Structure formats: C-alpha cells, structure tokens
C-alpha cells in the first residue's frame, strides 16, 4: 500500500462563520484555506504547527445535496446523529479542559483517566463531537484495542 497520510477530513457545519468562531476563536485552530470557489466556500482549519492535516468545514446544501437531503443532514447533525467526530491529542488534558471551559465550550464528558490516557469530550455548536486526549505512550506491538472514550 502506498498511501501515507490522512491529510484532510471533513465535517458538516451549519454556518461557516460560526464554525470559524468556534474552531479558531475557541479551540485555537488556524485557518488553513478560506477560498470562495464560486460554487462553494472551501474552508479548512488545522491545529497550529500541523498544516498537513486539515479539517474541511463544509456546509451541506445545493447543488451538492438537494434541498431536502441537505435538510436531513442538518437535522441529523443537530441531533448529534450524523457521526462527525474529531479526535485530538494534547500534552495536558486538564489544562486544555480548563481553558475550554473558560471559553464557554460545551463539555460532554469531564476529564477522566482511562487505560489509554486522560481524555474528555466536547461538542461543537452544531452537534459534532470532539474528543481531546492526553495519551499514554503506546506499546509499539500493541494492537490498539483499548477502548476509546466510552463517554
């Protein structure tokens, strides 16, 4: 296999300006690309220092999706049922948690020490889940079967 990195991932957002407020203003991510392509606004963000991994913040709608389907996507997203899920790592879970609480971010799960590390959960303004973990060093032979975030 010759694939070598996951360079971009996508989540749906209801409003791209509001998404910027959250992902850049509150989470501290950086705008990677914000381009009006005419047919869509290509908006990606990345963690500071890691521009090789972008998250596309895509707004569901026509013509990519017909209006009725876009509405279904929006409804599932706001129910937390669409499946958008980001996992991020940190050097200090408790410190990150305190910072995010201070910025009014919605916490779904307090920091907890688990077999794989210390992690907590937040939700973005639209319904996507984000998990932030301070991971313990992993055994290089491990099969990675420790469960992540039961929540």
């Amino acid at each position, binding site marked *: 296999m010759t694939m070598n990195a996951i360079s971009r991932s996508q989540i749906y957002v*209801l409003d791209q300006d509001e998404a910027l407020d959250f992902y850049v203003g509150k989470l501290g991510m950086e705008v990677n690309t914000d381009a009006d392509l005419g047919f869509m606004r290509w908006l990606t963000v990345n963690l500071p220092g890691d521009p090789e991994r972008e998250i596309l913040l895509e707004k569901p709608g026509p013509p990519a999706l017909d209006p009725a389907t876009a*509405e279904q996507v*929006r*409804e599932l*997203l*706001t*129910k*937390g049922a669409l499946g958008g899920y980001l996992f991020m790592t940190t050097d200090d879970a408790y410190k990150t948690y305190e910072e995010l609480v201070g910025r009014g971010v*919605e*916490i*779904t*799960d*307090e920091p907890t020490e688990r077999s794989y590390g210390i992690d907590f959960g937040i*939700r973005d*303004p*639209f*319904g996507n889940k984000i998990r932030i973990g301070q991971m313990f060093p992993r*055994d290089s*032979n*491990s*099969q990675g*079967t420790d469960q992540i975030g*039961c*929540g």
Partner: protein
Amino acid sequence: MSRAVEESNRAMLRARDAMDRAYAEPLDIPTLARVALVSEAHFIRTFRATFGETPHRYLQRRRVERAMSLLMESNRDVTDICYAVGFGSLGTFSRTFRQIVGQSPTEFRRARRPTPGVPSCFTKAWTRPSSFG
C-alpha cells in the same frame, strides 16, 4: 421552519449531553428543561419526538449502562453501584436493571465474570490483549 427544527434538535441534544455527563446527580425534568430552555411539558414531548424515547427512559438507560460497566469492572457491591450511578433506591434500580438487561444486577455480574473473587487488577491484567510475540 427548518431552522426552528435545527435549534430545537440542538437544544434537546444539549439536555441529552447533560444526562450523559451528570447521570449520577439527581437530575429531574425541571433541571433538564432549563438546560434546553423550554417548558417542562414541551421538553418531554419534544425530546421524545427527537430521540424516540422519553428523557426519563434515556436517563434510566444511561444509568443502567454505567451500572453494567461498574458491575463488570469493579468489585463494588450492588447497592453501592446503584447509588453511584444515580438511582435513588435499590428497588427501583433492580427493577429497572432487570427490565432493560433481562437479568438482575447480580446475575449479570455472575454471567460476565466467571471467576468472582479475583481482584479486578488481576482480571484486567490477564484479559488485556497480549502485546507479546
């Protein structure tokens, strides 16, 4: 119309997240309705329409799920676990657990742990996926 549905969904999700997070606390409908910024009657009706079950039922399932985890992973006694996950009485806990799981808490623990009495640290160590050879 659509925007109203989205805002309502998101508010219901916020209340459901509160149940996931604070299941061990004595959550009641007035508290959850305040999280969702709606009246109590509206909250129950809308939550059910959104997620297919009442908030009360969702909270029960969340608490039972946590109890199942503690029954499997700890040696705490059933009464202790009952209160730890937010139930107010052992009778309600036992009845609800059996209704949802189909077994009593004790039966569930016995079925899942064929070697009762072994300290959980040993069980964890010996059932951990092998990282050797």
